[in-house]
């Protein structure tokens, strides 16, 4: 069973990388971009039956720094 963990910066936390990407997009002529926020995607290959609570525990203990980041878990069915 696979799961995706999306890690994003909390609202209000300055994202210099997102800003730089935004500027680069503008430099390429993409004028319709209002904002860019960069995050991470972590793909976990898990033993069948791994509980949601356990994945959340992984996020809190290591995958995300909850001082500045939010996480969202998405289980991939049939993967």
């Amino acid at each position, binding site marked *: 069973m696979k799961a995706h963990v999306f890690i994003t910066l909390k609202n209000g*936390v*300055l994202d*210099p*990388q997102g800003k*730089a990407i935004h500027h680069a997009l503008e430099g390429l002529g993409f004028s319709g971009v209002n904002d860019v926020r960069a995050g991470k995607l972590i793909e976990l290959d898990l033993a069948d039956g791994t509980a949601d609570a356990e994945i959340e525990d992984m996020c809190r*203990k*290591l*995958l995300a*720094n909850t*001082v*500045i980041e939010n996480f969202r878990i998405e289980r991939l069915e049939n993967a």
Partner: protein
Amino acid sequence: MRSAVIVFPGSNCDRDLAVALEQVTGRKPAMVWHRETDLPEGVDFIGVPGGFSYGDYLRSGAMAARSPIMRAVTDAAGSGVPVIGICNGFQVLTEAGLLPGALMRNAALKFVCREVPLRVENSQSLFTANYDAGEEIVFPVAHHDGNYQADETTLDRLEGEGRVAFRYLDEVNGSARRIAGILNESGNVLGLMPHPERVVEPAHGRTDGRRLFEGLLETVNA
């Protein structure tokens, strides 16, 4: 003073810190590999050095903060042993929960490597007793992720409790309130981005950092 320097894969200021400590204390520190589970008997000072532990994978300091030795460091800090985290060491201590907040990518996205003027905001701590309050000193910085951030409540609390030890005089990396170094609640854990261990002898061009280690030695031996 029996000091220990923690060494992670990717640490690169561990020897600088060891040399500084040996010069000031007259005793070679124990170099403790991150996979150890115990600190040497009787250690009364712990240094978490700068570098790029684990190649900054996931987040700077994140992997190092979960390594076996950090449990022993956390226990020692809890029992009052002074702990300093310099640069990557500061990132490790925030990731380990020994200090509040987080160190993010520098606001201008550039790696900053130069000498920066700092103000000593608290001269009453274990680490800063040999400086005057408000004194201006110069330490070098060399980091990509030194942008200190915490929520407003935490920042207000740090300020109110005199836990901002050092503050940048100029804009360096986007840090909230130009914070360069902070203390934990009990005052025995200091994290800072600038490098005091790189300014301890005249050959370094400056000796502003020496007093930090000398002050600590006096307190620990007192």
